[in-house]
């Protein structure tokens, strides 16, 4: 990779070629998602991939005033992503469509501004149930999809997407041990570029576990294809006792909770959500499933009652309004010995199914997911 002579050092004799060279920034070509490094300051990072990528900016890599130019020449949308502890502000969007680009300026080691004078503007589309919303003083059209459908793109451009996938089924209880609550479906916000109609898939919830039968994971919600869209992950089903084995909670968008004697499932990735709870076995009460906002509560509490699922997340930062609606909550763990019936996750909430109790009740199904798409007006 060519290097620029900048920064110059004390005592250096500058040549005309040095001064000319700083007008010709080196290119750093990337063919997959990439995390910026200190050497990228005062260079152009060029992404080139047919499917979606991320360009991650981590804390304490750059110093105040550093500038990084970014370009996207691939067909997949490149999303500039803030690492832990980093804030990236922009008047436009952090999603950069093909042939778009802009300039990242470090205002401190952890705060950046992204200028995108040639960036893509928002598109327009129809589909689902439409309403007008205002978020942070910005007006949007909001499209809500509660079942599979098609997004009809009437003008190519950027679209903000909020996907909630289906919740996992709750585990059954039996033999004086509660089942694990189902994990919530993943809760993902992303801005994508669409130039053509796109399929909208609403993930179904997973089935609850019957006696001696493991439940099933929730299914993913998605918009578009892997090349231009975004896809979530269904919640993991809760643990249960099958034959002579305590089945752990399953991996999912958010992990399923453990039954009275097992381990909770993990989240598919930290970007998707949180783990299910793991039993501490003071009693054999079940753990809660992972929620979009927190891990499931550990089971085995001394009361013998099942533990709560992990907290969900609020929709209001995306959909606006003053009413806080929380979805994608983890499923409730099952009690150690009662015969309390499990509660299913609500339709279009992505909530995990509640678990059955040790007295022999079955697990409940997870709730189906939901998809919101908005664009500026």
């Amino acid at each position, binding site marked *: 990779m060519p290097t620029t002579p900048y920064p110059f050092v004390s005592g250096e004799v500058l040549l005309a070629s040095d001064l000319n060279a700083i007008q010709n920034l080196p290119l750093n070509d990337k063919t997959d998602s990439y995390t910026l490094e200190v050497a990228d300051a005062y260079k152009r990072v060029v992404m080139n991939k047919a499917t979606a990528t991320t360009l991650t900016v981590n804390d304490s890599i750059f110093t105040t005033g550093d500038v990084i130019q970014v370009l996207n020449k691939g067909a997949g949308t490149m999303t500039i992503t803030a690492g832990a502890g980093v804030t990236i502000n922009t008047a436009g969007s952090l999603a950069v469509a093909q042939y778009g680009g802009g300039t990242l300026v470090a205002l401190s080691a952890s705060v950046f501004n992204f200028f995108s004078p040639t960036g893509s503007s928002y598109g327009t589309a129809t589909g689902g149930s439409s309403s007008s919303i205002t978020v942070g003083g910005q007006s949007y059209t909001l499209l809500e999809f509660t079942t*599979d459908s098609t997004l009809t793109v009437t003008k190519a451009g950027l679209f903000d997407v909020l996907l909630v996938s289906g919740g996992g089924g709750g585990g059954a209880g039996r033999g004086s041990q509660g089942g694990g609550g189902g994990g919530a479906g993943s809760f993902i916000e992303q801005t994508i570029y669409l130039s053509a109609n796109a399929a909208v898939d609403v993930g179904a919830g997973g089935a609850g576990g019957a006696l001696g039968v493991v439940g099933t994971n929730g299914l993913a919600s998605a918009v578009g294809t892997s090349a231009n869209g975004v896809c979530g992950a269904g919640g993991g089903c809760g643990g249960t006792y099958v034959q002579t084995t305590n089945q752990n909670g399953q991996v999912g968008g958010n992990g399923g909770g453990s039954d009275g004697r097992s381990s909770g499932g993990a989240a598919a990735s930290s970007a998707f959500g949180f783990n299910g709870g793991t039993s501490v076995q003071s009693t054999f009460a079940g753990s809660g499933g992972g929620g979009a906002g927190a891990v499931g509560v550990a089971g085995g509490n001394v009361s013998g009652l099942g533990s709560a699922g992990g907290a969900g997340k609020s929709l209001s930062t995306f959909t606006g309004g003053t009413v806080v609606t929380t979805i994608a909550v983890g499923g409730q763990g099952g009690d150690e010995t009662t015969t309390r019936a499990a509660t299913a996750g609500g339709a279009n909430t992505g909530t995990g199914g509640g678990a059955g109790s040790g007295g022999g009740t079955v697990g409940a199904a997870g709730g189906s997911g939901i998809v919101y798409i908005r664009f500026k007006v």
Partner: protein
Amino acid sequence: MSAQYFAQIDDNNVCTYVAVVQREFLEANPQRYTGRWVETFFDTEGKTYAGIGYIYDEVSEDFVASVSSVIESEEESENEF
């Protein structure tokens, strides 16, 4: 309009996918919903909501959990602890 749920089943009547979709949309988009689909019912008394791997019983028009998943009988479990 409340959501409907349809399960895709293979030649052995095993559920391979569950979609949240209105019947009209499913029937109007055969290229998207290939194969056989039967309705399943979410949180409805007397009906088993399908999960992947569940088997469709054409007589009862309902789903049952996969036999391979049911690896102990109710009686076997009663004295486990």
